[in-house]
């Protein structure tokens, strides 16, 4: 198990390699990337900011809970902060397990819990030059990726 909040580009292949072992039969990777549109508005980039120390602690709690709940310690998660351009990865989650079903279950549980609990925020930059903090709880918020 390893997780981190980092200010550098993420390397999905490195996280995948980190969780793979001869004891696993399936490894899954989730990569969240900056999309060119949100809620109907053209997006050109995103600033991610974090309450760093708590974000890392909360992420570690979530990963520990996932390990217990899904029965695998083969989990690696990195979340990036700073200014990201289109297609850049904001989060990578790697999970491996002896069996494929719990690997995929853990993947889904992890991304949902991380989005719900980790104190990280994003401010979208729109094509018209404006910027806005994204509030997933706002009524207008699209089901976010």
């Amino acid at each position, binding site marked *: 198990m390893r997780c981190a909040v980092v200010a550098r580009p993420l390397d999905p292949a490195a996280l995948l390699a980190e969780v793979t072992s001869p004891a696993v039969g399936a490894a899954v990777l989730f990569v969240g990337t900056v999309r060119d549109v949100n809620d109907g508005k053209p997006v050109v980039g995103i600033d991610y*900011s974090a309450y760093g120390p708590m974000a890392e602690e909360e992420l570690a709690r979530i990963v520990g809970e996932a390990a217990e709940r899904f029965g695998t310690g083969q989990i690696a998660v990195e979340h990036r902060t700073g200014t990201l351009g289109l297609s850049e990865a904001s*989060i990578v989650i790697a999970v491996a397990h002896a069996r494929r079903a719990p690997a995929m279950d853990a993947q889904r549980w992890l991304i949902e819990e991380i989005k719900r609990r980790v104190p990280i*925020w*994003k401010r979208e930059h729109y094509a018209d030059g404006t910027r806005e*903090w994204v509030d997933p709880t706002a009524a207008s918020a699209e089901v976010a990726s």
Partner: protein
Amino acid sequence: MALSVLCFASWGDVFGPRVEVDLPAGATVGDLLTHLSSRPEARRLPTPVVAVNRRYAAADVSLSAGDEIAIIPPVAGG
């Protein structure tokens, strides 16, 4: 009781990264939220939750001088 409260995202834009608050001894998380939300500059901000010593804290949790207290607006990681 003097408290130093970390603010992030939209709350940080309005209050700065750290806001000093004076509350009666024994004040709770709920008291802090009531106090900050009553300020005029908070009117258009989204409803936050509070973390105490890097864990989410319910409204009835008591605060102490020296706690690491943070206002957490709706998170949007991932």
